[in-house]
């Protein structure tokens, strides 16, 4: 019907120069639908792009050093801080009552509204607050004096103030105060010493402790196998005592080294004074970075900016995750996603192969297929509960009592860990892979299979040599989708192994190098933790955006590399087609 009316519409112009009159309803041509479809697409694009821009803008600007403003209030008090945000509000009558007549009149003239700014004042150890609101009417003057330092410390958050004095190796060196380059050099020396202390404490003493723990577990294992007081146990105890003495001696030596360095470190200090004059003396090595906030050129600002990013992606978190970096979380997310792919890809593909190629298509297969599709719709937290109950408690508990009885009652696999998290997410994403693989297999032309079979290949040979390679790009697409979903999932992970603070990466230098039982940190959970669990939610907000940016970046990078691999495969098989 539609085609005939269009034909007549097309024939019409031949009738003369009359204005074109549409006889077909717009509905029939589909024009309004076209607009609706296009509009929907545009709306979707705007939403996605807007979201990305929001995250990008907030994430990218967070680390840019801001100026420090000194505000003198009308009552003579002074405060120094980074302006954080401002808002307009309506002061209540009880606030207005405390103000003088002129201010009241000014506020009334502005429609009863007044502005106020939130300043990040830092110096939490001095003020016991680190943010403060200042109303515009209470401000006598603002200034951005030079010489004000923004000092990021290992503890207590930032300090905003001036340098009063510097002591290097026990000698007061007041000249360093005005010589940023020499101060930076002294700071580098102190930081290098701090890193050395950390290396001794973490790596070298860590080795000793690790060995000691291994020996202790060994004795316990012997005791469990042969019984307490048996000759084997006595021999093991003797061996342990011997090893322990040697290791304790190592430990004492290393601890003395570290202690010596710490003492030296304590002689290099910096004295800072906040705007009100209160002084604070800290070790120079406890300063992460400092800069004169109002005297920076663009290049120096860029330097601070990059150095902050560098710390963020390569360091460990400090101060209950509110400062420092997120390296363990990046690593945890990455390793978990890789594990997830390693598990989900073969499982999904094998299942789909059987369903599509071998199973007799009937009621049973339909039921299985419907079940698989339904699995994709189950809320992810349900998988978390299953993962905790089945993987961690049942499977992990079993593994523990079979293989790690010497560590009980401390669970090894019997609690959340990166392996269980990856398996849980694999379960969650396997429907995606199955469905995509089935589609890809179905899309391989029947003629190719028949050709192969006609040449005398067996069914398995046909699948392996002909079907699978051609289906590979489609399968890869499924795996990529599964990976993207898995990397961004947080809810089930909270039950099966993600923790706020996991000091150890799942991969390290101790045998067996890859510790699948360990809990781990995850960028998604880190976002939740920093934004909604940290003491100071105000300071946490910008970090939420930075971490989100990083998570999106990580997922993007993994997806891109998977797409590149898929395209390689495609090209490889494109050449060998008939």
């Amino acid at each position, binding site marked *: 019907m539609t085609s005939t009316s269009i034909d007549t519409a097309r024939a019409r112009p031949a009738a003369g120069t009359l204005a074109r009159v549409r006889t077909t309803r717009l509905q029939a041509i589909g024009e309004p639908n076209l607009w609706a479809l296009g509009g929907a697409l545009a709306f979707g694009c705007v939403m996605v792009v807007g979201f990305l821009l929001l995250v990008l803008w907030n994430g990218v600007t967070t680390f840019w050093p801001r100026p420090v403003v000194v505000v003198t209030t009308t009552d003579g008090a002074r405060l120094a801080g980074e302006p954080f945000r401002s808002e307009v509000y309506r002061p209540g009558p009880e606030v207005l009552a405390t103000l003088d007549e002129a201010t009241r009149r000014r506020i009334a003239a502005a429609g009863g509204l007044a502005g106020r700014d939130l300043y990040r004042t830092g110096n939490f150890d001095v003020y016991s607050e680190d943010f403060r609101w200042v109303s515009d009417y209470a401000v006598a003057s603002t200034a951005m004096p030079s010489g004000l330092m923004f000092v990021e410390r290992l503890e207590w958050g930032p300090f905003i103030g001036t340098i009063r004095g510097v002591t290097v190796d026990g000698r007061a060196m007041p000249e360093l105060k005005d010589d940023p380059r020499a101060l930076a050099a002294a700071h580098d020396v102190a930081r290098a010493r701090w890193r050395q202390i950390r290396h001794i404490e973490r790596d070298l003493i*860590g080795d000793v402790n690790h060995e000691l723990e291994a020996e202790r577990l060994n004795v316990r294992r012997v005791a469990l196998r042969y019984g307490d007081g048996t000759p084997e146990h006595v021999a093991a105890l003797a061996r342990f005592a011997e090893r322990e003495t040697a290791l304790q001696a190592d430990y004492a030596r290393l*601890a003395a080294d570290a202690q010596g360095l710490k003492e030296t470190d304590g002689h290099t200090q910096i004295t800072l004074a906040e705007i009100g004059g209160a002084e604070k003396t800290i070790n120079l090595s406890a300063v992460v970075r400092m800069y004169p906030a109002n005297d920076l050129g663009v290049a120096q600002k860029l330097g601070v900016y990059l150095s902050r990013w560098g710390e963020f992606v390569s360091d460990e978190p400090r101060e*209950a995750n509110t400062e420092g970096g997120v390296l363990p979380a990046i690593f945890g997310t990455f390793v978990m996603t890789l594990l997830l792919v390693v598990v989900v890809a073969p499982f999904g593909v094998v299942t789909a192969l059987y369903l599509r190629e071998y199973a007799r298509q009937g009621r049973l297969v339909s039921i299985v297929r419907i079940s698989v599709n339904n699995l994709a719709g189950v809320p992810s937290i349900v998988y978390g509960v299953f993962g905790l109950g089945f993987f961690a408690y049942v499977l992990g508990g079993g593994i523990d009592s079979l293989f790690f009885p010497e560590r009980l009652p401390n669970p090894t696999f019997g609690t959340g860990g990166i392996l269980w998290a990856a398996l849980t997410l694999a379960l969650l994403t396997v429907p995606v892979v199955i469905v995509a693989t089935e589609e890809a297999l179905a899309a391989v032309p029947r003629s190719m299979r028949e050709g192969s079979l006609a040449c005398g290949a067996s069914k398995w040979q046909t699948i392996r040599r002909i079907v699978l390679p051609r289906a590979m790009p489609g399968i890869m697409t499924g795996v990529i989708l599964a990976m993207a979903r898995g990397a961004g999932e947080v809810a089930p992970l909270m039950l099966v192994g993600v923790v*706020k603070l996991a000091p150890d990466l799942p991969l390290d230098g101790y045998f067996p190098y890859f510790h699948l039982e360990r809990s781990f940190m995850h960028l998604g959970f880190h976002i939740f933790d920093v934004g909604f*669990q940290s*003491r100071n939610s105000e300071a946490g907000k910008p970090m939420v955006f930075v971490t989100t940016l990083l998570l999106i970046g990580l997922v993007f990078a993994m997806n891109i590399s998977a797409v590149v691999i898929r395209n390689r495969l495609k090209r490889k098989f494109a050449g060998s087609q008939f």
Partner: protein
Amino acid sequence: MLRNRTVLAAALAMAVGAPAAAQTLDPALKDYKQISGVSGSIKSIGSDTLNNLMTLWAEGFSRMYPNVKIEIEGKGSSTAPPALVAGTAQFGPMSRPMKGAEIDAFEKKYGYKPSAIRGAVDALAVFVHKDNPIRCLSLPQIDAIFSKTRKGGATKDAATWGDVGLTGEWAAKPISLYGRNSASGTYGYFKEVALFNGDYKDSVKEQPGSSTVVQGVASDKFAMGYSGIGYATADVRAVPLSTKTGEPCAPATSEAAYAGDYPLARYLYIYVNVNPNQPLDPARAEFIRYVYSKQGQQAVIKDGYFPVTQAIADEDLKAKKLM
């Protein structure tokens, strides 16, 4: 619960006079001294209120003992007892004392009671928006605001800000309520003390974390919510509270908490599985000692809570045979 409060006040008063300001430590607290041969792994599961504090302690402790592995999970106080019973955690931080049933479950498995150490003092704060002019609230008023049963003796339900004495634009505005979820110890403590064991109103928006309560109040001008004082930000204000209507209100400061004037002052506990017949393993024993050291209590201040005194430390350390 009143009894608990008096105990807290008495114990704190026993110390060398209550500390002068919020930010000072009891000078009697000792510096932490490292010992050798401490290693192992510690897992802590429990309170969300104590989550950051445990993390700060863990960070400080692993600076002393680089090879003690500490993992921290904080989803609510009610998750601590099951984890201790199952042995999945060695420490169970809780923002309320364990209930009888929880202690029984533990005792049934191990044959002895779990030990509690009191790591910090918290003034459970009732937060309002920073522009809110309210000056003082009594516990019966709080009860009338948050509870539908009003066991505190208030005769009338308080649904609007006018019901608790505000005028002008506030008078007609309903109070928007924020609270914690039921797994939280803060929820339990608030219910017991401020609601006199009554029931919460259905309109209380239950939040998964203490910080979310504060963020909720910060973004809602007519809101009221409760959470640990450590989560206070510049956008909210803790309302001074009194026990009975008409009494002078005490602010949520350390002085008022120590003196017992602030009605919602409480200890924050860490529960540990200590077999009374065996010495505690070095990692856990040292962690407890660290909590009670000058460094440990400094971390308490850093997290916004109030430090305990040496007197409390002595009492708990003796009970654990660590002194």
